[in-house]
């Protein structure tokens, strides 16, 4: 089955009101080219589930978001994502704020076809006070109460990977896969952008096949976009773009998101975007972060 899809065809796959999981973590390996396509589309009223960074900030700022399911939204070296912060402080978005591990459990429950997974996490905190949909249940095995973390079923997951073949075998060589495998498994459809399309023989070598973390049946579409994680990182290929994020952050103080959108995204193709940020060669030279 050939799952290759053009980037320009992606946004029309989505519908208003969908629940969308976004892979990556903060400023790390986010499917930003896919996010830019959503920003340029008419899609709205989305529920976004993410270990959030600029993906969440941009979607909120562009008015695409009804609700954010999150544990944090951060750009790491800029701890507070400026546009998510503004959206929250203006009361623009609904939220389901949960612990990082609860999000993982919710994705696993969805992946495993279980309505919930019991956990202690969240008990005694405002996580249960502010999320009345989170139920606390008795255990059949002990006298304690447990939080029943509901399945976080995704209509779509968006993930960026290093390389994939046209059948949807996806490889991530970076140091961490974050919860991307669980996002793929929790979703009805998984759209994967990749730095490079490879032939299936590439994975014949077990040292390459070891870096494949979900089966191709979990991948619905493969969208080649070299540099498609920019301005976030795609380690080991490139780091995140610190000057670009600083400029993005500055727009929150002056000009607003509309000015950023008009400068880089509005009416532009991904090629235009990459030219505006210095070109693919410059993206590929961005230094890896030191933690």
């Amino acid at each position: 089955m050939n799952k290759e899809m053009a980037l320009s065809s992606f946004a029309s796959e989505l519908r208003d009101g969908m629940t969308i999981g976004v892979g990556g973590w903060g400023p790390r390996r986010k499917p930003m080219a896919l996010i830019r396509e959503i920003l340029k589309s008419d899609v709205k009223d989305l529920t976004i589930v993410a270990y959030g960074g600029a993906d969440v900030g941009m979607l909120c700022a562009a008015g695409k978001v009804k609700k954010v399911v999150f544990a944090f939204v951060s750009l790491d070296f800029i701890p507070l994502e400026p546009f998510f912060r503004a959206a929250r402080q203006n009361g623009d978005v609904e939220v389901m704020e949960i612990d990082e591990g609860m999000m993982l459990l919710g994705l696993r429950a969805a992946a495993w076809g279980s309505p919930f997974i019991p956990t202690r996490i969240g008990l005694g905190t405002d996580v249960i006070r502010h999320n009345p949909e989170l139920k606390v249940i008795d255990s059949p095995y002990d006298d304690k109460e447990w939080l029943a973390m509901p399945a976080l079923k995704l209509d779509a997951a968006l993930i960026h990977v290093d390389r994939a073949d046209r059948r949807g075998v996806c490889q991530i060589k970076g140091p961490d896969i974050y919860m991307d495998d669980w996002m793929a498994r929790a979703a009805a459809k998984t759209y994967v952008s990749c730095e490079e399309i490879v032939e299936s023989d590439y994975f014949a070598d077990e040292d390459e096949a070891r870096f494949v973390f979900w089966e191709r049946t979990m991948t619905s579409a493969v969208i080649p976009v070299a540099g498609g994680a920019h301005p976030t990182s795609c380690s080991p290929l490139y780091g995140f773009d610190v000057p670009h994020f600083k400029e993005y952050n500055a727009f929150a103080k002056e000009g607003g998101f509309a000015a950023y959108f008009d400068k880089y995204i509005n009416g532009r193709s991904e090629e235009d975007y990459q030219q505006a940020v210095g070109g693919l060669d410059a993206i590929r030279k961005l230094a890896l972060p030191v933690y």
Partner: protein
Amino acid sequence: MTNAIEYSLAELMICANASAYDNDGEVLVTGIGVLPRIAASLAMLSNNTDIMMTDSEAWLLSEPNPIGPRPADFRQKNETWMGFSRIFDNVWSGKRHLTGGPTQIDRFAQANISALGSDYRQPKVQMLGVRGFPGNSICHANSYLVPQHSTRVFVEGECDVVCTIGFNPERLPKGYSFDEIDVRQVYTNLGVFDFRGPDRQMQIVSLHPGVTVEEVQANTGFPVHVPDTIVETAPPTEAQLEIIRRIDPHNLRSKQLKDNPPGVRA
């Protein structure tokens, strides 16, 4: 062990925080932020060599990485992959001790890193979000480091967003006991504190040189228990300072407290 004569307040706080891990055995230690990270590394290189530590990205290290830019030929000492999903496996096992830096701490030892303001739907200041604090607080040991001890941090009421389970009887889940909640110590620019006073009240463990009980109480939004005898926080040793200089070769510790004050007040 020769005690240092001259040291900064940041170095005193690092050494106090490092002592948190002395009797922890073989657990994952995580110090969030510059001073807690240096403290955790110091502990691993001195009093508790059994500690496990990550590179703050995706690997477990057999030796802590120095903080800040490193030479091009630097090779970190990996011992296993430790991506975020595996961090949660470790958290839920309980074999971890974390030192974090909350924006608010209340009299119930509850902490806040999420948001400020009375209206949760439209917070006055959106901060990080609860991150992993709910899970950390109910699964393993937690300490806190506060660079500026004030009534803005140690708030009079409850935290605006309660991110951790603490010792508020109204929030104790059915079947649980407060003995299961492991809040260890709080390290501030004024002293060392814990929540082992009467009825789990915050109490003074030690005060830094020159700090008075009155100063602590004036800067805390709730009553602090004052034990009969109060010791002075132990000064760093020369050996500790030597390790700290190795872990923090760019002296990032000098930029963490306003004006980098000395450990012994002038």
